[in-house]
């Protein structure tokens, strides 16, 4: 897993435009007028340098002192805009037949594919895996009364969370009422506005417990985990009874 900065690359950007971004950044770095920092991603899945992806440059940072206020914007961007991605390669007889990158916001980029069918099957396979994970989580919910546990690597602002969910706004699409409040722990009850299913959430500074009564959709768990991971530029894992789910 690797984190990239969305302000510079978007999964919808085609391979060719990423490539041009690479050249442009190199130019900026070699110009005396523009001092900055270029970041080059090492292709962790590549067997050797020759087979590494050609567009490994995913972000750049530079010349922030020349444009007034740019350093502040860049710092804020680094904090606010981050998504996770995982890179996949499929190799057949030593040849890369499919190279793709999957982003936490649900989008995917197929960087290289020898065959269109291969690309479509890859996308379908990922959708099936997600459906299987949801089914598995649903079975856990029906079999026991344990909650889903979301572990955040970064702390969250409980007061801000409480205010946000009371209005039902934000990407999380939760409308919740706070029912118990302590400095480091809050209990909430409400609905998932995607489905209007009931939802119970108990939230600490770096974790949340999620309980979905009745036949409600468990989809809220991976959605909150993904959004929280993005918003706080951190990683979120989901557990049930100490075992990672939606891994």
């Amino acid at each position, binding site marked *: 897993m690797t984190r990239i900065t969305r302000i510079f690359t978007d999964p919808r950007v085609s391979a060719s435009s990423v490539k041009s971004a690479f050249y442009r950044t190199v130019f900026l770095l070699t110009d005396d007028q523009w001092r900055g920092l270029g970041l080059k991603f090492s292709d962790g899945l590549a067997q050797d340098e020759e087979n590494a992806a050609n567009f490994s440059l995913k972000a750049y940072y530079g010349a922030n002192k020349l444009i007034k206020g740019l350093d502040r914007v860049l710092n804020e961007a680094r904090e606010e805009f981050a998504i996770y991605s995982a890179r996949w390669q499929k190799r057949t007889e030593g040849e890369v037949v499919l190279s793709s990158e999957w982003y936490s916001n649900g989008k995917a980029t197929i960087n290289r594919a020898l065959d269109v069918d291969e690309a479509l099957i890859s996308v379908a396979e990922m959708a099936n895996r997600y459906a299987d994970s949801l089914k598995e989580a649903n079975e856990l*919910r029906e079999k*026991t*009364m*344990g*909650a889903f*546990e979301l*572990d955040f690597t970064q702390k969250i602002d409980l007061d801000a969370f409480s205010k946000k969910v*009371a*209005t*039902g*706004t934000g990407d999380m699409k939760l*409308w*919740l*009422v*706070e*029912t118990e409040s302590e400095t480091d*722990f809050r*209990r909430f*009850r*409400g*609905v998932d506005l995607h489905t*209007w299913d*009931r*939802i*119970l959430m*108990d939230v*600490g500074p*770096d*974790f949340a*417990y*999620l*309980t*979905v*009564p*009745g036949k409600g959709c468990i989809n809220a768990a991976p959605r909150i985990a993904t959004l929280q991971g993005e918003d706080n530029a951190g990683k979120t894992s989901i*557990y049930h*009874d*100490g075992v990672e789910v939606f891994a």
Partner: protein
Amino acid sequence: MPEQDYRIALWRNTIQLFHEYKKSNFIGPFKASGFNYVVDRPFLTRQGDSRQPDIIASGETGWLVLELTANQKSKEAQLEKYKTIDPRYLGNYGLYPHESPPDIICSRFDFVDDGSFCQIFMKDFFDLKNEEQIANQHLKNELIKAKEMGLDLRKLPEIPITLLPEMNNPQEIRRGLIEIVMQLFAPNSDGKTPIQMVDEGLERLIDKIGVNEKHALMDRVKFHMEILIDNHLSGYLEFKDNAYRATDKFKQHHKTFEFVASRLKEWSGPSPQKTLQDERFQR
């Protein structure tokens, strides 16, 4: 933290003893003992008498009958009756089979004399009494370990059941209804009858509750919904044709969401509440 006669908290804290949470490093003693559990399932004694304890759990090392109660009277006589439950029915519920008699534990908030039966206390920190009565050594060790470390029960997750029979605490009933009420504001909602609201709150206990108990709970729900409609969400909710519904005054707007949420919080909050002995309820 939990107020007196807070049955949901008693159930929540007891149920979570069968679970594990990583961030808080919480491993319940029943989870550590390898127990799986079922809630409110019918069993028979070897004489054919019916028994339905709150929880039955089983693992490789033994099996267990758990009674949860907020009642201030002794449960000794009832616990005694559980001794003769026939373990052959464990397999019917996918639980590990045994031939020996069960360990019996009563789960409470505060001490009430239940004779010599083992008791666990679920208020804030785990506590234990009469542990010498537990035959399963592995379970006994885990319970003692939880007691000695003062297992913290204050921040455990909620359970999907939000209403329980014999609930009497006004705050608890209102909190148990919050998200069920919020669903009434869903676009194209048909509204909900009082019995539907009770069934949703009971969740997986829905078909395990007697008619009289359910009816009594429905009366309490109606009482508290009337207060909500009259005093807190007047104009936004109505009771019409035996169903609670949102009115046209409700708009899908963040300001309205915020207003309704604040009123629900006020209704279910910790301020002094009217009780079922109120004049209105006696009518």
